[in-house]
């Protein structure tokens, strides 16, 4: 919306109504440089917007005033608490490093409750990481590698240390003397992640 920008704020022109003593027609005479957005039904609450609010809020009749529409939406949002989730996705490319001096790190725009990390399976690779599920706040993260050329596929389970869960950044590292595989950080391999938290 735009404000009205008058040259003469508040100035009006009064024109006497013929035959009606003491009665005047009034019109703005503020000579605006910008007319501004009018305040009316079309700008505050159209029928379409009222119907959308009615549907979104699960009401039986549309709001007739903007204040009623806002109240309906606020109630609907309040009911969503704990039922809706916020989600963030992304990816990283493995660097082939591991150990406490070279932790992996992911930063989110919110503090997740659950983070799922999965390696994009590479048909040419012999060993890959299977998806990891990390619950925010846990001191370790279980990482599993699978060697597909073994029959049945040989699996390695490894508890990875989580270095930091403060704020919105997750850092994790495998102990020195292990492998980048155990840190879900295989060189040049793509990993995707999804982070979830209640609204």
């Amino acid at each position: 919306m735009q404000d009205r920008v008058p040259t003469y704020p508040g100035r009006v022109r009064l024109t006497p109504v013929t035959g009606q003593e003491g009665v005047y027609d009034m019109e703005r005479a503020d000579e605006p440089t910008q007319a501004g957005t009018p305040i009316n039904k079309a700008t505050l609450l159209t029928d379409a917007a009222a119907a959308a609010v009615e549907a979104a809020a699960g009401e039986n009749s549309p709001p007739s005033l903007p204040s009623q529409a806002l109240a309906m939406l606020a109630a609907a949002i309040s009911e969503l608490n704990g039922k809706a989730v916020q989600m963030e996705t992304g990816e990283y490319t493995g660097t082939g490093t591991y150990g406490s001096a070279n932790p992996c790190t992911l930063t989110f725009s919110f503090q997740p409750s659950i983070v799922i990390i999965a390696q994009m399976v590479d048909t040419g690779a012999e060993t890959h990481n299977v998806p990891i599920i990390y619950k925010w706040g846990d001191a370790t993260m279980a990482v599993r590698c699978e060697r597909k050329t073994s029959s049945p596929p040989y699996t390695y389970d490894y508890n990875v240390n989580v270095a930091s869960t403060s704020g919105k950044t997750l850092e994790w590292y495998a102990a020195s003397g292990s492998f980048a595989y155990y840190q879900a950080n295989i060189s040049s391999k793509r990993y995707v992640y999804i982070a979830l938290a209640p609204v």
Partner: protein
Amino acid sequence: MRYIEIEALPNGAHRNQETESVLSLEGWAVIPEELEIPESFPFVDISAESGMVTSMSAREVPEPEPEPEPEGDIWDELAEAIRSGVNGID
């Protein structure tokens, strides 16, 4: 947006992250969409200015790290010994 840590790891790779969210990462820079990413990524040399990567070039990718080898499974060894007729240890 794609982010990359400005300082390289000891093996020449850079930690990196790509997400739709706008993040503020100290010591990291944003890779502009128009910048070509070398195949060697994340093994690259980069220059950055004011939080944006201004150039990126390929660097040598080190040999892949060795894969973890399966540890010997004592039960597999026992089964094999029984199959081969071993019934005692000298």
